[in-house]
């Protein structure tokens, strides 16, 4: 009896899928070995459909097991693998090799502004601490028997900022955050926005007060790095601007 499944290997007659070799320049830092981070190059053979994450896995699994990075879902929803790829913050699992200029080395390093731990791993605690400070949870005094009623329009008002996966690509692309370790950063403001504009929430004034602080929303210089970096396509700068307006003129 045949044991074929839908995933049978292709018949030998089929043409092999073409591969290409890419030089990956990875910012190496092993705290138990290296004094300072330095660039290290790896040549990797890849398929056109491969992502930067696949390239990193190939290095780790076939060349150097000490190369360290976070990853989990591998399709852009868990937020583990934000890193700087050719100088731009992106998710490694959402960046296809074929979309990069592979005639030149591809540079990969850890996101900036958070303490470097090892290779592409940074300490995420300061990032999550800022997030927690904006009280990122619904505060409502009523206890309805069923659901709270919310119109589709009210729901749409904060839809964009509900997409956030807390990957830190935005916050760690922000020049203000790099130089001022106290700034809340875009992601915390995005997550405050998600509740400030939720019609069910009653604590927006508390959050607006928190963000009106000297380390809060006014540090934003509107450089738009964050919006460009967001792998979920959130209009981060706009969300920050809306929070600024809400502080000045009240919620609309």
């Amino acid at each position, binding site marked *: 009896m045949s044991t074929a499944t839908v995933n049978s290997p292709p018949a030998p007659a089929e043409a092999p899928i073409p591969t290409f070799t890419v030089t990956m320049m990875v910012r190496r830092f092993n705290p138990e070995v290296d004094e300072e981070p330095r660039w290290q190059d790896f040549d990797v053979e890849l398929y056109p459909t491969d992502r930067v994450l696949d390239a990193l896995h190939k290095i780790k*699994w076939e060349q150097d097991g000490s190369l360290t990075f976070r990853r989990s879902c591998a399709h852009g929803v868990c937020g583990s693998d934000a890193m700087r790829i050719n100088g731009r913050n992106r998710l490694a699992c959402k960046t296809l090799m074929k979309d990069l200029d592979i005639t030149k080395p591809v540079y990969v390093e850890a996101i900036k502004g958070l303490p470097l731990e090892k290779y592409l791993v940074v300490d995420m605690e300061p990032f999550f601490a800022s997030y927690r400070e904006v009280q990122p949870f619904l505060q409502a005094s009523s206890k309805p028997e069923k659901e709270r009623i919310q119109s589709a329009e009210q729901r749409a008002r904060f839809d964009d900022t509900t997409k956030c996966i807390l990957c830190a690509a935005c916050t760690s692309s922000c020049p203000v955050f790099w130089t001022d370790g106290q700034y809340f950063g875009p992601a915390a403001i995005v997550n405050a926005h998600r509740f400030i504009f939720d019609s069910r929430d009653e604590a927006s004034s508390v959050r607006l007060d928190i963000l009106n602080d000297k380390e809060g929303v006014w540090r934003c210089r509107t450089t738009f790095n964050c919006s460009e970096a967001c792998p979920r396509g959130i209009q981060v700068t706009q969300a920050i601007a809306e929070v600024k307006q809400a502080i000045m003129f009240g919620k609309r």
Partner: protein
Amino acid sequence: MTDYADGTVVDGVTYHQHDVVIVGAGGAGMRAAIEAGPKARTAVISKLYPTRSHTGAAQGGMAAALANVEEDNWEWHTFDTIKGGDYLVDQDAAEILAKEAIDAVYDLENMGLPFNRTPEGKIDQRRFGGHTRDHGKAPVRRACYAADRTGHMILQTLYQNCVKHGINFFNEYYVLDLVMVEVDGVKRPSAVVAYELATGDLHVFQGKSIIFATGGFGKIFKTTSNAHTLTGDGVGIIWRKGLPLEDMEFFQFHPTGLAGLGILLSEAARGEGAILRNSEGERFMERYAPTIKDLAPRDIVARCMATEIREGRGGGPNKDYVYLDITHLEPAVIDAKLPDITEFARTYLGVEPYTEPVPVLPTAHYAMGGIPTNVAAEVLSDNTTVVPGLYAAGECACVSVHGSNRLGTNSLLDINVFGKRAGNNAVEYALTAEFIPLPDDPAKPIRELVEMLRTSNGTERMSTMRKELQDSMDRNAQVYRTETSLVEVTKVIENLRGRYKNVMVQDKGKRFNTDLLEAIELGFLLDLAEVLVYSALYRKESRGGHFREDFPTRDDENYMVHTMAYLTGDAHSEDAGDHIKLETKPVVVTRYQPMERKY
């Protein structure tokens, strides 16, 4: 036997004491924490940051008979769940699932979850596979949803509420062992041993009650919707402790994974009207399930797709996939209801779903089986005996509400209903229980394992072995299985078991040593793949997600029973027959007698 106060460090091992210890910070673990945290000292230990958990990848919705958009009731939901599971569902558990679904959804909404809304401002609902009106008459709108990122919203909402309650998380701590101690002739849980990724240090978390909410193990397969981190560590720990695993042969293959990648495209697409087509453009599901067509349950649709491909009607240059067609839907509807999955098709396959059908293929998605529990989420050491103080919930557990095939949207439901039950029952238990004293040096086995791997001069590449396992599982234990194919994969596992003893770990450091952890994870994958295949060999019938070509029909006379696998010897000996014993457990039948499953 001894106890250490919270924070004590002895020989480099840090000891912690909590009333409730929860392993895993996905939906089930955090739902449990929200119940336990406010009432008792609770710790949540997770190998990831909580918001990275794979609950966040769930897309389509969470079933509950709210009847917000059309007539529905929980009894219909119960029936659909049982029929969907091909009658291997424990019917008392399914009834609880369907009944408590309604409050579970309201709980989440009240916690802040931004569900999509009806024109009246209520929670909107949509169709999903296998969910029907009045016992199969037509599809019903039962899935509560937030665009196609319902799991993301659930994970975020639960994490937000954990922040609100000040839940104590230990992030990037890998639990690698459960410490069981015999008290009055009964083995009881005392603590878990965790490896701290950042430092390589070991921690012992003593808990009066312990909840496993560790998720699935889809990484035993190559083509899977599961995250890299879903390696079944929790289920594997339970197995190595000599506790049984239930119904491990039943693994769900989701019909619509992106071809070649396995990334999930939600069934919500078909709920919103998407159609599966073969290379001839035919809507082939009409032939197989004339009443509900593309919304037949996943096991059936996955097999029909595989059949179309086998019979030469697959698309593409190698005729090895079928198409998911949403080109007839309005772009505005797609953008509002299916934005993420259409983005996946664009990003990863370069296909524009507005105008082109998307190549899809079944992808390993969900373990129906796992750690046996009763409806109170208490772990069982045989068919009926409870392990006092030990709980399990979510994908790692087998209650069994999913039987041999889970319905879409019932897993987000499962984690909420049984996560809540686990949290409530564990905290109630902990408030009257004492700590079980620790044995001397409880971290010793894990310290020895870690040191052995870290300092070994092994030469077998972990990634090569894992690939061999995954390739063989895809080839031999996927949608179609036969005795020959299953025996083949047992031989592969036997071979890998031998080589695993010589596994290579290149990173010799202590800090963030993911190389080491991947090697440990491979050990769990081998264990679980072996139990799955061994159980599948025994079940000489076809039911739900388990299809044996050599026994293509359901055999209620001989197999209307759960499989219970027990470890009887060295878990790492090469021949499975040396250390696995299979027994059975009756299915709880209340009001629905098994019928032929037609849609």
